[in-house]
């Protein structure tokens, strides 16, 4: 536990030192404020300001957060291996599992801090200029982004443990991001619809992609009527129930965090340093 916390603190220090944490916090804040201003100039700011901004941010963050988390996770162990520092670290009184967990939780905390700083600062500025009525949705969106980051960091770390070099790991991470963000809709969702257009098969497809799971959860939190989701919305409303749907999607996200992380721990212990 102590060793894990030593590595975690080093990851946090590295995040501040390299300034990526502050750069991403600034990016998140600028995104949120720009969207808010754009909607304000079109006369939408007001009681629905937070809701509109949240809806706009979801699509941007479903692209940006997975990319950031996958790239950071993928570079974590592969970068140490490439520089030779992985062997130096593992020659200390620390187990591979403690090292992986320290790196994972360090990165998770760093990304969460970037999200909290960026969206927190933007949220406070928006609250100053418009009535605060929908902060809950905005905060829920920040929490969902944080969960998505944790899941994608877990996948990134799994890529990292298999990669000999940072460049290879980053390349694989970008391919995975492309598959999950862009090709999944075309491939898996299209396949599911061509085989069966039932809401059940669509729900199964959504559970297989954390980005989709977060998108559906975000929409469910914003919209009272799930017809906007088509057959999936009807299936969740009529067959599964909204509460069970949320539970299933949350469980899928938890699995997307736990399973790649467990696999990373297993392979880190069985691979030569």
């Amino acid at each position, binding site marked *: 536990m102590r*060793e894990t916390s030593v590595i975690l603190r080093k990851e946090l220090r590295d995040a501040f030192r390299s300034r990526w944490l502050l750069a991403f916090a600034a990016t998140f804040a600028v995104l949120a404020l720009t969207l808010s201003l754009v909607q304000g100039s079109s006369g939408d700011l007001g009681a629905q300001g937070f809701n509109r901004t949240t809806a706009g941010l979801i699509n941007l963050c479903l692209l940006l957060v997975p990319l950031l988390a996958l790239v950071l996770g993928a570079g974590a162990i592969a970068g140490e291996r490439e520089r*030779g520092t992985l062997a130096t670290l593992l*020659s*200390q009184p*620390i187990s591979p599992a403690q090292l992986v967990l320290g790196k994972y939780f360090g990165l998770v905390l760093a990304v969460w801090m970037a999200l909290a700083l960026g969206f927190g600062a933007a949220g406070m500025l928006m609250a100053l200029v418009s009535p605060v009525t929908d902060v809950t949705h905005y905060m829920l969106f920040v929490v969902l982004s944080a969960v998505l980051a944790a899941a994608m960091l877990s996948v990134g770390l799994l890529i990292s443990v298999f990669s000999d070099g940072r460049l290879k790991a980053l390349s694989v991470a970008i391919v995975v991001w492309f598959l999950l963000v862009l090709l999944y809709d075309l491939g898996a969702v299209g396949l599911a619809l061509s085989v069966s257009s039932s809401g059940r098969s669509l729900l199964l497809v959504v559970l297989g992609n954390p980005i989709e799971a977060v998108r559906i959860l975000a929409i469910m939190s914003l919209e009272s009527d799930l017809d906007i989701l088509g057959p999936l919305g009807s299936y969740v409303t009529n067959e599964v129930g909204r509460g069970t749907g949320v539970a299933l999607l949350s469980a899928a996200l938890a699995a997307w965090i736990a399973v790649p992380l467990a696999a990373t721990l297993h392979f880190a212990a069985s691979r*030569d*340093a």
Partner: protein
Amino acid sequence: MLTASGLTKKYGSQTALDGVAFELSPGEVLAVIGPNGAGKTTLIKCLVGLVKFHGKVTIDGIDVAKDGRAARAKIGYLPQNPALHAEMTVSETALFYADLKRVSVGRAREAVEAAGLAEHADKRVGALSGGMRQRLALALALLADPPVLIFDEPVAGLDITARLELRGLVLDQRAAGKAVLLSTHWLEDVPYIADRALVLDRGRTSYLGAAADFASVTAPLSRLYLRLNGRTPDAVGLIEQIAPGGLIDRTGDWLVVSCRASDKARVVEHLVVSGVHVLDFRVEDSPVDGASFRHAEGGR
């Protein structure tokens, strides 16, 4: 203190180590010798638990394969090319490894001072010279005062002063009761610092015994560069008497004599006594090569 038995490591179909076995007691220095590719670094990586292997390694009774973390708490390891985080300062590096090794902040600062790096404490590790980085890595290996020290090619790239300092350090650690294992491909160091020698040849043990006995059956080679003031043909004849079988060649003004390391001083002495004026000379100690090992095997 350290035991290895049936130590075997394969990389794919290639066997890097094949059934290596030895013991190392407190207050003993074991030199692991072999040419490049003999398996020295692989052996050390197995001992530290950095790679998976067949066989068994225990450090103070702790099985490295089963509880590597506890075993490594008893090891101070200096890798061949120490890789430290370049962006951290010397001070941060010492404190970080002290934290991992559960050593006090005060001890970490002492280690930085003892390594002669106190005035560079705020300098980034990436900005240190190679020698300073080596000193820092050595300080980190000694940080927790571990009972077992494992040094991989510690003298590689060091100048003669640093090499002698390291010899002194190894002897001090031995006197303090530490079990020291160091790999080298410089045979000349072995009789001075090691009690026993383990020779690896293509992953197999070709010699395990007293370092003094090993030195007597091997033929460490030296290359002697001599610049003479005339009488070169006479000198060649004189050298052949002293170092029979030695190779004599010419490079510009220099006469190049390849001979046993033990003959090199006698060659110079004999030339001077015979009236050949030696204007200048240089010596290169040859690292261990395959020929030396075959010699060692034959002399077992």
